[in-house]
C-alpha cells in the first residue's frame, strides 16, 4: 500500500499535507499523534471510507477507489474505533459477517467460514463467548470480538484504530503478540493507531508521527521514536529510561506530584 501526495483537511485545518508513504508486507506501522491530529481520519481514508482532499491512496499500484469493493475487502480489513450495536447479534455472527468477501453467491456460511471464525475468536481468547449477545459483552470483550472479526477477514493489510483500547494489561500484550506474529510470521502489514508508546515501540517496526499541523515524519521506529520528535509530536516533553534491553518512554516532568 502506498499514498501519493495525500492531504487531509477538516474544515480549514490541515491535518496531513503531502504524505508520501509506503507500507510493505511484514511491516508494522504505528501512527502516533495528539488527539485530533488526524490519526483516525487517516485510517478511514486508507480504508476508503473517506475521500482524500488531495492525492491518492494506492493498493498494488491502483487507486483504492478503482478497486471493486469486494476485491478490496479481501485485501485490507479495518477496525473502527468505537462500536455501536443496534441489534443483538451473537459474537460468532459478527465474526462470520467478516467472511462476506469470500462467500460470493453462497447464502449460508460453510464449514470453512465457521472454522475460521472460531479460530479467530479463540486467538483473541473469547472462544467461550461465541454464543453471547454482543450487547451484553463488556467493553474489552467486545473489542476482542471485533479484532477477531478483522482477523477472520484474512487480509494482507490490517488497519487497526486503537486495537488495545478498553483491554486489560494481559490482553493488551496478547493482542500485541498476535500483531507481531501476523507481521513477522505471516508477512502481513499492520497499520495501527495507538496511544501507548511503550506497547507500540515493542511491536512496531515503523512509525508515522502526525504533528497535527500537516507535517509528518515516517520511518523505522528505532529512528523516529526518539524523545525529541515524540515530545514535539505529543506536545509534552518525553524521556527514555533503559530497563534491561528495553527502552521505556516516560513523561519528562511530573507536574501533578
Amino acid at each position: 500500500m502506498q499514498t501519493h501526495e495525500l492531504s487531509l483537511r477538516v474544515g480549514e485545518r490541515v491535518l496531513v499535507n503531502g504524505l508520501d508513504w509506503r507500507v510493505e508486507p511484514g511491516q508494522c506501522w504505528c501512527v502516533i499523534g495528539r488527539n485530533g491530529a488526524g490519526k483516525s481520519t487517516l485510517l478511514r481514508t486508507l480504508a476508503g471510507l473517506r475521500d482524500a482532499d488531495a492525492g491518492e491512496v494506492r493498493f498494488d499500484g491502483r487507486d483504492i477507489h478503482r478497486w471493486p469493493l469486494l476485491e478490496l475487502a479481501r485485501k485490507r480489513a479495518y477496525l473502527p474505533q468505537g462500536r455501536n450495536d443496534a441489534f443483538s447479534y451473537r459474537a460468532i455472527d459478527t465474526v462470520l459477517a467478516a467472511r462476506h468477501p469470500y462467500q460470493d453467491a453462497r447464502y449460508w456460511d460453510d464449514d470453512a467460514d465457521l472454522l475460521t471464525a472460531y479460530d479467530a475468536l479463540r486467538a483473541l481468547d473469547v472462544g467461550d463467548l461465541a454464543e453471547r449477545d454482543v450487547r451484553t459483552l463488556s467493553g474489552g470483550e467486545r473489542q476482542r470480538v471485533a479484532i477477531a472479526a478483522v482477523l477472520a477477514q484474512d487480509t494482507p493489510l490490517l488497519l487497526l484504530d486503537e486495537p488495545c483500547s478498553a483491554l486489560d494489561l494481559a490482553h493488551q500484550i496478547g493482542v500485541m503478540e498476535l500483531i507481531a506474529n501476523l507481521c513477522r510470521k505471516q508477512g502481513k502489514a499492520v497499520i495501527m493507531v495507538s496511544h501507548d508508546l511503550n506497547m507500540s515501540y515493542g511491536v512496531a517496526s515503523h512509525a508515522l508521527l502526525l504533528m497535527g499541523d500537516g507535517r509528518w515524519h515516517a520511518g523505522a521506529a528505532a529512528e523516529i521514536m526518539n524523545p525529541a520528535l515524540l515530545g514535539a509530536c505529543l506536545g509534552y516533553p518525553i524521556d527514555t529510561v533503559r530497563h534491561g534491553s528495553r527502552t521505556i518512554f516516560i513523561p519528562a516532568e511530573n507536574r501533578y506530584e
Partner: protein
Amino acid sequence: MHTMEPATSNVRLAARKSRGKAVIVIIVLACAALASVLFACVVGSVSISVPELFGALIDIVRGEPSTLAATLLELRLGRALSAFVTGATLTLAGVMMQALLRNPLADPYVLGVSGGAAVGALATMLFFSVTWLVDVAAFGGAVVVAFILLGLAYRDLRGGLPAEGNAPMLLLTGVIVASGCGALVTLMLSIAPDNRLRGMVFWLIGDLSTTQMRGLPWVIWMAGLAYAIRAARAINLLALHAAAAATLGVRVGRLRLELFLCSALLTASAVSSAGSIGFVGLIVPHACRFAFGPDHRLLLPAATLAGGGFLVLADTLARSVLAPQQLPVGVITALIGVPVFLVQLHHLQRK
C-alpha cells in the same frame, strides 16, 4: 487446549444445525400461515365445516360458486388472502426500515410514507368518494412523500454517513414530514362532513373489509421478498457495521437507497389497499428477532410469513369478535401490539 478433530466436527455440526433450523422455521411458519388462512375461511357468523370447505373449494376452482358455503368461502378467502399479503408486506417493510435506520424501534410508518398515503386517500374520500380512486391516490401520496424524502435526504442516504451513524438526517426529515402529513390529515378530518367521517377514520385505523382481491400487491410483495433475500447478507453487514460495512465489500450508499425505495414501495402497496394498519410492521419483526435471532437471512423470510399469518388472525378476530359488527383490524393489531411491545421493551431493558 482444543484438539483439531472434535473442533472441526463440532463446527460442521453447527453449520448444518443453523441451516437446518432455518429450513424448519420457514416450513413451520409457512404451514402456520396456511393454517391461519384456513382458519379464517372456517370462522365467521356462519361457520363452514371442513368437508363443506373442501366441497366449496372445488366449486370455486371450477368457477361455479353456487352453494352458500362456496359464496362465503369466496368472500372469506379473498379477504384472508388480502390480509396475508398486507401483513406480509408491512412486516417486510418494517424489517427493512429497521435495518436501514439501524434502529429496532423503527416501523414502516416512521418516515411518513404512510402519512402521504393517508393525505392522498383522505383527500380523495373528502372530495370525490370513488372507491378505486382512493387506493390510487393513497399509492400516489405515498410515492410523492417517498420522493420528497429522497430529495431532502439524498446525501444522507447515498453515503456521507458518519462512521457510527444511525442516519439522523433521514430519520429527522422523515419524522418532520410525517408530522406535516399528520396535520393535513387532522385538517381534513375537521372539515369533513359527518357522513364521510366514518369511512375516513376507518381508513386511518386500517381496515380490510372493503379490500378487493388484487394481483399487484402479491407481485410487489414477492419482488420485495426476492430482493430482500438476495440482499440479506449485505443487510446483516449494514445492521452490524453501518458505513464501515463498505470495508467488507458492501456498496453501502446503493444498499441504503435500495432499502429505502423497496420499503417505501412495500409500505405504499400495503397502505393503499388496507389503510395504515399499525403495529404489524413493528411488533412482528420484533417478536421474530427475539425468537429466531437478528440474522436477516432467516429473519426476512420468517418475519414476512409470520406477519402475514398474524394479520389474517387479527382480521378474523376483527370481524368475528363483535359479529355482525366489524371492527377495523388496526384496532386489534394495536390492542395485541401494545402489551406485547411493552413486555418486550422491558425484557430488553432487564437484559
